[in-house]
């Protein structure tokens, strides 16, 4: 099927005037020709037959996120294998005396809720739990993963798995790295340390390790967090302000005379935590805006700080000091570092060999993928996901991340996260079983194949695929894993000999459309500009521009592409050679704040295009004949203007010398 976009692409973007009629008609005729040419170059996708039918969900990690994901999937009727590396379910939440309230009236700490979830899981026939267990190998692909699970003092079992949720959680930042804040000294604890003391007190007065009842306590917020020097964590862990409020309440609820002071620079109380904060103030917990410079522990702890409201230095005495340290995600080894160590180890470096072993010991999934054992990371060790559209997504198909492994969060958020991830995982299993793609091209039956006779084994496709879908076979040819593929076409754009194609999307289907456009001669004063627009954001933005009747230049011809990453440079050189006067590329933002739906696609595509300028020079063409535009789906009003500006620029440059050759 092909679409000639006559309404949003032609009629609605052109004025209904006699003067415009001729060019509008040409535009419409071109689009009809293009659609016909595309259809001729396509075949109907037969669908991937290399599918698996497992509908069992593997959840790695038995904390709040993991337990929630398992229960939600089970409630929907799916079987779940839940593995936990310790001897009991509950994770970090189980170590908490109480949790931040998640319901009205948000005034007092609540039961941590772990026992209830564990009981539900125990009673759930759909959920199989492995304790003291870890994943030693994950082979296969979505719908047919083969996961080897090693259980302490037991045999290794293999489970057939459809999709995976990684809920491996976090560890607290190591206090010992904060000696200036008293980390490691007596009576200076982190928030988890305080939970242990509170558990021991069981609602009574909280005592320190030396048995003394605590009469005064100081909380130091952002300890080793939001660190501009980058020596410690650069980010905010989000939960710790609320957690300190909760912990200060432990003291006040047991004995209102305990002096509790919270030292903060910004108190961050998202959502209903604002009510919780107010309740804490009502209970007499003192909040002071100040920067702590030094903490000394011991029998009588001292906290030196500068009060930012009074602009004055103070020293507070306390029986106990609590450091609000941050969350460090348990994502597994960084794939780039691991790759580097691996290369050095292969070169015979002994140190690197030891490093590889050490890094591999931290692996969570032990994926048997050419691209490494775990999900790729983005910033600060959290896994990479499309943070706007597909937050639970990882860059490995049918593997989803939930909870603090994805970004810092509290229990309430982790619960929501786990529910969302379970839903996505179920979708992915179902689609994999039917040989269909997962989002963003959910339901797509096409998949890439390579004409191996032409393949030069350059490895570009295997390296560039953002989702690690391509392995290598024994003869060192690319081996596509259809179920791991998202159908972005990045491999197709990357291939220098153009042997990769989809049945309904290929170098030919786009090439045929480019050729189908009628190019008027040099003297017609009717230039032609080819626009290759990403189908995820740029093309819908153009459609919406049409719906808003935002007019634009009649000389452009737009072809949607799956991703900027799928753009093969041959399309551009062919277009320019055949007399187009300019080519515009429209793709999502890339880099740190990327919005590319295929994560790396637009970045890789742009990198590839940056190489094309040499070719332009060789053809004696101006650099401006190629224009790369970052487009967001909201650019409905600005996009037409940018198109018109470019069209103007083309007129300034004059017609392409390649017309009619």
């Amino acid at each position, binding site marked *: 099927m092909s679409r000639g976009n006559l309404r949003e692409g032609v009629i609605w973007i052109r004025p209904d005037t006699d003067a415009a009629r001729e060019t509008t008609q040409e535009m419409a005729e071109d689009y009809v020709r293009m659609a016909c040419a595309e259809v001729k170059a396509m075949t109907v996708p037969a669908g991937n037959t290399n599918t698996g039918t497992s509908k069992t969900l593997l959840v790695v990690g038995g904390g709040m996120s993991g337990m929630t994901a398992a229960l939600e999937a089970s409630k929907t009727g799916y079987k779940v294998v839940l593995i936990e590396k310790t001897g009991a379910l509950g994770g970090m939440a189980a170590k908490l005396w109480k949790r931040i309230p998640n319901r009205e009236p948000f005034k007092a700490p609540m039961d941590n809720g772990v026992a209830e979830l564990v009981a539900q899981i125990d009673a759930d026939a759909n959920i199989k739990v492995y304790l003291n267990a870890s994943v030693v190998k994950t082979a296969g692909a979505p719908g047919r993963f083969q996961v080897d699970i090693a259980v302490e003092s037991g045999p290794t079992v293999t489970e057939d798995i459809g999709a995976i949720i990684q809920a491996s959680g976090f560890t607290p930042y190591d206090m010992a790295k904060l000696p200036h804040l008293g980390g490691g000294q007596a009576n200076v604890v982190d928030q988890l340390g305080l939970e242990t003391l509170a558990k021991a007190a069981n609602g009574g007065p909280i005592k320190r390790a030396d048995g003394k009842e605590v009469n005064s306590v100081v909380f130091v917020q952002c300890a080793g967090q939001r660190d501009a020097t980058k020596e410690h964590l650069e980010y905010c862990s989000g939960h710790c302000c609320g957690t300190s409020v909760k912990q200060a309440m432990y003291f006040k609820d047991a004995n209102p005379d305990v002096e509790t002071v919270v030292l903060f620079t910004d*108190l961050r109380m998202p959502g209903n935590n604002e009510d919780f904060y107010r309740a804490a*103030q*009502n209970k007499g917990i003192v909040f002071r805006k100040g920067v702590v410079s030094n903490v000394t522990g011991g029998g009588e702890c001292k906290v030196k700080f500068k009060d930012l*409201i*009074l602009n004055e230095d103070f020293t507070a005495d306390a029986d106990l000091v609590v450091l609000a340290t941050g969350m460090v995600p348990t994502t597994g080894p960084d794939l780039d570092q691991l790759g580097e160590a691996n290369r050095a180890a292969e070169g015979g470096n002994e140190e690197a060999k030891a490093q590889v072993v050490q890094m591999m010991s931290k692996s969570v999934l032990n994926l048997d993928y050419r691209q490494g054992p775990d999900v790729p990371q983005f910033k600060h060790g959290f896994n990479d996901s499309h943070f706007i559209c597909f937050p639970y997504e990882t860059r490995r198909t049918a593997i989803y991340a939930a909870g603090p492994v994805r970004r810092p969060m509290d229990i309430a958020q982790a619960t929501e996260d786990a529910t969302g991830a379970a839903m996505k995982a179920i979708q992915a299993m179902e689609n994999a079983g039917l040989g269909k793609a997962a989002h963003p091209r959910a339901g797509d039956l096409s998949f890439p194949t390579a004409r191996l006779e032409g393949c030069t084994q350059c490895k570009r496709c295997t390296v560039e695929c953002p989702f690690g879908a391509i392995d290598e076979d024994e003869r060192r040819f690319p081996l596509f894993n259809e179920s791991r593929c998202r159908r972005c076409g990045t491999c197709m754009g990357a291939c220098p000999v153009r042997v990769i194609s989809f049945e309904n999307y290929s170098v030919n289907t786009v090439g045929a459309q480019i050729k189908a456009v009628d190019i008027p001669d040099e003297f017609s004063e009717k230039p032609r500009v080819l626009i290759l627009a990403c189908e995820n954001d740029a093309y819908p933005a153009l459609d919406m521009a049409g719906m808003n009747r935002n007019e634009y230049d009649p000389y452009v011809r737009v072809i949607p592409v799956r991703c900027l990453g799928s753009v093969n440079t041959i399309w551009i050189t062919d277009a320019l050679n055949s007399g187009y006067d300019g080519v515009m590329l429209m793709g999502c933002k890339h880099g740190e704040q990327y919005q590319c739906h295929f994560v790396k696609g637009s970045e890789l595509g742009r990198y590839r295009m940056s190489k094309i300028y040499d070719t332009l020079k060789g053809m004696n063409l101006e650099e401006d004949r190629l224009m790369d535009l970052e487009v967001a789906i909201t650019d409905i009003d600005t996009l037409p203007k940018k198109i018109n500006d470019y069209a103007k620029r083309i007129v300034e440059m004059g017609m392409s010398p390649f017309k009619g050759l």
Partner: protein
Amino acid sequence: MSDMNQQMTARYKNNFLKEIEEQAEMGDWVKMCMQCGVCSGSCPTNFHSAWDHPPQELFMMIRAGKRDEVLESGSMWNCVSCYNCYVRCPRKVPITHIMHGLAEYAYRLGKAPKQQPTQFLSKTFWDNATKTGRVNEVKLTQTLYFKNGLMDGIKQAMAMQSVALGLVKAKRLNPMEAVGGGHKCKDIKGIHAMLAKARELEAQRKGRAA
């Protein structure tokens, strides 16, 4: 040091926040301030009279236990009861009332700044009004005008002459009030008894010697 000041210092030791919570009107709201600074930014007097400490800062000082600095401050005496801060405070802290509560408490402790003009007005007004149960405008004005001596008083009276004459004409000011007791309410004794009772109840509520 006044008796009451000694008594309170002994009772609250270093816990000034608690002292304010229990002793100053509406002082129990101080802890609810979240230090956003909206009050300080809203106060119209702040910029003109160069306050030492805007409300937000006063509240922080209370929490930081800076007893003398707070009580001896002139800041709360500068509040003109415009209620800007009160209506804007996101925490609904009754700031205006606390300002007056702090001022009043500082005065009772004998720690309020001496010769502070608004304090002088308040005291004069209170004495004037409670004496007969009615405000004697002539005497009130006299006391205020002549507080800095005869010459200054005459100068001020001359400057306000036309206003005064207008008031007399409109029967808003009776020059005869200057002599004798002036007008009064019917039951002066009753008023005094009522004020004494109020004082007693307040002392009881705040645990002070009456």
